[in-house]
């Protein structure tokens, strides 16, 4: 069964450094998402991406965050000048259809630890 893959599984970064989290969505999917889960808390929406641009973003997704689809397969989340509170699991998800009401399929996440 096709799946969303994320790399690395664990990223350790010094505070203030930039980090790029990578995702390969399911190949025929059109909508891509990033979510965050701080340890012990619920999964929170960050951003959705369609047709090479951001379609929605949450209050969490401020100017330190950016997303990109640099080629036909990868979808990346960049965090500039990381802060301690950016430590969390970051999940990528994708769905096939343009409109909603289809389940989003998640990768197994990248654990980001900011020191």
């Amino acid at each position, binding site marked *: 069964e096709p799946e*969303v893959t*994320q790399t690395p599984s664990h990223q350790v970064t010094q505070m203030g450094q930039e980090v790029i989290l990578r995702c390969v969505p399911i190949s025929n999917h059109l*909508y891509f*998402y990033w979510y965050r889960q701080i340890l012990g*808390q*619920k*999964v*929170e*929406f960050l951003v*959705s991406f*369609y047709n090479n641009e951001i*379609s*929605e973003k*949450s209050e969490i997704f401020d100017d330190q965050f950016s997303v990109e689809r640099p080629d036909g397969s990868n979808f990346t989340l960049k965090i500039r000048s990381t802060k301690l509170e950016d430590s969390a699991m970051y*999940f990528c*998800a994708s*769905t096939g259809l343009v409109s*909603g*009401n289809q*389940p*989003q*399929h*998640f*990768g*197994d*996440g990248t654990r980001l630890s900011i020191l």
Partner: protein
Amino acid sequence: GESVGLHLPTLSVQEGDNSIINCAYSNSASDYFIWYKQESGKGPQFIIDIRSNMDKRQGQRVTVLLNKTVKHLSLQIAATQPGDSAVYFCAEKGNRGNDMRFGAGTRLTVKP
């Protein structure tokens, strides 16, 4: 404010029993709901979904019930197995249109 939440943070059941996990939501305009299972170290795994024009949907060993009158969602797992032990999240389609808003999660523990 609007939120998706859960009644119980933990649920412990005996293997073979049925499990019921509950979820309350407050956005009456939500038209799509999903139950996800999250095992340790993994991402949310889709279990079952339901649209607001339905009140019940069944899958393999799982049933989702939607009560729009009281804005309540439940997940029933029949003949619970040790492999069902995980955190279960309900999620509703958010106001933005394509994001999913997750509840806090219920940890299900199945005792052998």
